[in-house]
């Protein structure tokens, strides 16, 4: 049997479906959000109360800081603040 017969090619193509709308675009915006993320991290390092608010409710604290709380921004901040 040929390794890549047409039935197999079709089955493999079906495996790689596009992610739901908006996921890829959100990840692509990371470089644009970098300045905002850096400013939140710097503020959290200088202001214990702000850091506590971030830890308690990241999404709300980010919004209150005037930054759009997109999934990619929140993931980056969890990574930076968690030190993981």
């Amino acid at each position: 049997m040929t390794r890549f017969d047409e039935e197999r090619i079709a089955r493999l193509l079906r495996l790689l479906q596009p992610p739901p709308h908006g996921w890829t675009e959100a990840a692509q915006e990371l470089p644009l959000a970098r300045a905002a993320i850096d400013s939140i991290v710097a503020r959290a390092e200088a202001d214990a109360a702000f850091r506590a608010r971030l830890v308690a409710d990241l999404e709300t604290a980010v919004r209150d800081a005037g930054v759009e709380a997109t999934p990619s921004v929140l993931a980056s901040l969890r990574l930076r603040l968690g030190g993981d």
Partner: protein
Amino acid sequence: MATSTDAQLVARCRAGDADAWNELVERFSRYVYAICSQAFRLGPHDAEDVFQDVFARVYANLDTLRDDDAVRPWIGQLTRRLCIDKLRAGRRESPADAADLEPADADETLGSIDEAMTVRAGLDAVGEPCREILDRFFARDESYRAIAGALDIPSGTVASRISRCLAKLRAELEGRS
């Protein structure tokens, strides 16, 4: 324009090329999504958390990648680890071994997803119009009618074009192996 290799793409990202990050996310977004949703069967909410976490970590740690050619296995391993973490966090009982958390066929599915990436690379090499018609039919699950409308071609020719494009892709893949 020729498609960059993975290593070239990583080098461009490191050099601050504004378009390179978009291209890297585009190249690996289906890969990461497939690992989350098909190999580990995460629900949409958990899959999105892992998806964004993977790219946040890739963006933050791209400078630490030792072998630029190995970006795909690196992303694959990272995604797998974060999927296991997500499954572990969702358990109420005591922490379990990774092997207990992974679906029984995860390794087999991951192997197929890696092979599928090879097929996608072949599809990129075949180029348009085959790339779009095969992607619409197989990966996006669009009907003949929807494809005919989108590509402005007669509905009756869609099946034969898919068949011809599959043969072309097969020849491309056989030429690589």
